[in-house]
């Protein structure tokens, strides 16, 4: 089995350069959402992400609220929840002219193996939420566990080269969601909870 391994430096460069498509500049048309409802099966048919699943948006961060540090770690400012609900997936997109850069991942409680796992996935309207230390990584080692279509060629057809499945994933073992109720005197839940995030 063909094995490909990249250095950590190359992995970080690839993530850094990939994330520039999602951040670019503070004025770009991009959003990061915590969403309720079913995660889409594919994103390829979404051509207008700014109008996609509006009713399922629970928390929104604009591009100028999102910072990338150490080349691959996402942190946000605090943002008010748009409505109450159970977070089941996250969605991040940025429009670059006609090009849509987008990603989505599942959100579950621990230990249900979502892309992001939290102690609680309940969001309360008008509570504030932020994300700290959400790290994106690529795998360093790849094998030929996935095959490309054979390119037509004179017989005998050679085998296709080992493909790379970088499998971009989030690694937020140190990420926390800081939740601050805006009405401290009321019995708002949660008042001072810290969400400990562990990636799958």
């Amino acid at each position, binding site marked *: 089995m063909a094995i490909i391994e990249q250095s950590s*430096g190359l992995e970080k460069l690839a993530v850094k350069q990939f994330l520039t498509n999602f951040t670019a500049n503070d004025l770009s048309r991009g959003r990061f959402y915590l969403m309720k409802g079913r995660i889409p099966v594919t994103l*390829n048919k979404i051509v207008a992400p700014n109008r996609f699943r509006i009713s399922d948006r629970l928390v929104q961060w604009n591009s100028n609220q999102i910072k990338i540090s150490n080349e691959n770690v996402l942190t946000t400012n605090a943002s008010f929840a748009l409505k109450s609900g159970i977070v089941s997936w996250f969605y991040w997109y940025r429009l670059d002219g006609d090009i849509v850069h987008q990603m*989505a991942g599942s959100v579950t409680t621990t230990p249900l193996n979502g892309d992001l796992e939290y102690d609680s996935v309940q969001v309360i309207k008008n509570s504030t939420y932020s994300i700290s230390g959400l790290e994106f990584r690529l795998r360093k080692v790849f094998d030929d566990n996935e095959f*490309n279509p054979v390119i037509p060629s004179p017989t005998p057809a050679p*085998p*296709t080269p*080992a493909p790379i*499945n970088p*499998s*971009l994933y989030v690694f937020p073992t140190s990420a926390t969601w800081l939740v601050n109720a805006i009405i401290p005197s009321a019995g708002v839940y949660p008042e001072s909870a810290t969400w400990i995030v562990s990636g799958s």
Partner: protein
Amino acid sequence: MIFGDNIKKDFAELTYKNMTLAVVYRGKQPTAAEYISGINNGTYTWSGNFLLQAYKNIQLNVRKIESTYRVEKTSPSRTLHGDFMCQNGTAEWAALFNKTMIEGSNKLLEFDLSSNTVNFLRNITDDDLFMIVPVTDMLGDGVLRFISIDFYTDENNPLKQYSLNFSII
């Protein structure tokens, strides 16, 4: 996680299309950590027993093949990329380097045209930009492929095919 389809193209275009330097070796393919140790103790350098031939300025392009984006060599198959032949042997693996590794004040290696040697200028670290890939002949599935994986110092062995394929589930 799921992504828009252009993420594969982004990885290929933004990062991996710049892996234009190759050093071909014989022997068992090491891990990245083993390669780092081997460079720093001389095992995998020009003076060691494993380096066969090196290639500079490989022209690469990104091509879409159905749902896959492939970084591939665009130059004709007999194009030479220097005469950096070191020793005889049967190739098994190679190290690919980002083109920036031969640039700047902290460059990692240089291709010396006067002596036709490749020299590592400092210790390599895991922060440097490289990847370890398999090498085969045309019947194999290596990232780098040659007509023959038998290398000789008196005959330049042209790189026949270079393929890095991106197809994320």
